[in-house]
């Protein structure tokens, strides 16, 4: 991967590329700090969508006309760009899905159906999104397998000693996130993967929160599956990928049946298409996949390291600003984090904080962030979550802190 050398990003120039940022919300300039839910799209991604529909729209793969050829080429180009983006060995290891939720369901359902048996164990962590809990529960219920959970410390770091004790010959799958959508903690996935492989388990990594922030090299990690969301990395909603090692994907049964995934169909027997098409039944989300290419190029051009440096600076600035406000308590203070900060104010409900901030044009997320077991771990119902992206500024964090301070002053 060619990454530009560490440079100071030109924020003004970057912000100009995001049309949505330049608006007033409730009479104030929009301050968008809900990036962990979905981040905003640069003009080039939006233009790619328009261009596709205005010039190239056709169904892919089976057409022999020019538009079908162009659409197919553009769709497959994203697969190649994604292959390079995560350093996959083979391009057919990249399967397009509707997003990380579908990627995990595909992995758990197809792998689980073929390889998980009664009494087997699946290890997840205490900081998983519901999307990386429920699919495993479904397969465990079906097969009579058991879920085990890696506990975490107060600051939000996984307990690796406890993890090692959970691993055994019964462990079939380990499924953890690369970075937590709630706490922001970056998990030591290389270590987690290596330890799992020692007992013969396969590892699925939920990369929803990492793909826009952290370097990903699936070969160096040696993970078996890696899930990526497009809309959390400047790309369109409704698409994502499941990376899977070729030899594993080949052994796994199809997830959905339909067009595209077949070689031959008779009423007696169907033979399946080769990878990756075996797992891409039906007309895929062509336009969004095509536009995702631009999102990856956008990240590559800025350089992930530069993005990460900027976001790390924003995160530490936000943590400092917020924690200096009386009654504000930060949740999730792991040493290694992506740019997500949870906080609560004792005695003030997170909904009220979110609503008040919205009156000032500040968008944050409130609630349990689809991690109810994690909230239970901390004995809270929910929190406010501010999450930062490459286009955010320190001035915006000042506005956030100012808004929070006002609420505290008013309600306390």
């Amino acid at each position: 991967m060619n990454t530009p050398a560490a440079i100071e990003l030109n924020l003004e120039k970057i912000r100009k590329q995001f049309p949505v940022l330049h608006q007033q919300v409730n009479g104030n300039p929009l301050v968008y700090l809900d990036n962990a839910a979905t981040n905003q799209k640069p003009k080039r991604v939006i233009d790619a969508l328009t261009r596709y529909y205005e010039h190239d729209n056709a169904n892919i793969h089976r057409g022999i006309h020019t538009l079908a050829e162009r659409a197919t080429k553009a769709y497959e180009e994203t697969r190649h760009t994604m292959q390079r983006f995560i350093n996959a060995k083979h391009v057919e290891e990249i399967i397009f899905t509707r997003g990380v939720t579908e990627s995990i369901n595909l992995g758990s359902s197809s792998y689980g159906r073929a390889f998980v048996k009664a009494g087997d164990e699946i290890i997840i962590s205490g900081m998983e999104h519901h999307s990386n809990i429920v699919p495993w529960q479904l397969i465990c219920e079906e097969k009579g397998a058991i879920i085990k959970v890696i506990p975490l410390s107060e600051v939000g770091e996984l307990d690796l000693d406890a993890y090692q004790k959970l691993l055994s010959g019964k462990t079939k799958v380990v499924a953890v996130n690369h970075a937590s959508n709630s706490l922001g903690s970056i998990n030591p996935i290389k270590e987690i993967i290596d330890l799992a492989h020692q007992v013969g388990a396969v590892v699925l990594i939920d990369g929803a929160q990492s793909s826009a922030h952290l370097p990903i090299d699936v070969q160096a990690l040696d993970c078996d599956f890696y899930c990526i969301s497009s809309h959390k990395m400047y790309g369109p909603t409704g698409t994502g990928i499941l990376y899977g090692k070729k030899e594993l994907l080949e052994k796994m049964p199809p997830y959905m049946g339909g067009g595209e995934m077949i070689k031959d169909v008779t009423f007696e027997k169907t033979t399946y298409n080769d990878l990756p098409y075996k797992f891409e039944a039906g007309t895929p989300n062509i336009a969004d996949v095509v536009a995702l290419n631009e999102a990856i190029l956008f990240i590559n051009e800025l350089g992930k390291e530069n993005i990460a440096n900027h976001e790390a600076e924003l995160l530490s600035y936000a943590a400092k600003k917020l924690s200096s406000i009386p009654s504000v308590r930060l949740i999730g203070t792991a040493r290694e984090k992506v740019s997500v900060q949870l906080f609560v104010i004792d005695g003030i409900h997170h909904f009220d904080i979110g609503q008040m901030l919205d009156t000032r044009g500040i968008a944050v997320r409130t609630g349990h962030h689809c991690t109810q077991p994690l909230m239970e771990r901390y004995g809270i119902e929910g929190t406010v979550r501010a999450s930062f992206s490459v286009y955010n500024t320190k001035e915006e964090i000042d506005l956030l802190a100012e808004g929070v301070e006002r609420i505290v002053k008013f309600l306390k």
Partner: protein
Amino acid sequence: MSIPQTQDAIIDEFSLLDGDMEMTVFYIMELGQKLPDIKESDRTEDNIVKGCQSKVWMMARLENDKIYFEADSNTAITKGLVSLLIRIFNGQSPDVILNADLYFMKKIGMERFIGTQRSNGFAAMIKQMKFYALAFKTQKEIAS
């Protein structure tokens, strides 16, 4: 005061805020702070209004054919919102409540400053209050 009179008074009060979103939300929270808390023992599953994202507990009693509501919430804004409904409905008869036409929300542009989710929750609170009114009315009809 009749239900329309109370609603008109609320509309007048909100008009003083001049559409300032932040002031409006602060004002609603202030109204909530003025509404007495219910007893901890009344914060039960049975008293929860279903359909609200925040927790809202509501109780009602009938005195001399008039209904009196008590309510509480775990969020300040919702508590302020329910306090408006209590102000409008308290001391009214079941029939009057059942037939009441609530127009103040639209006039003060409530959906704009509380959003769709909370507006749905607000509708659930109204439904619950009308449900209490219907229950008291039916109770009385059976008794007579």
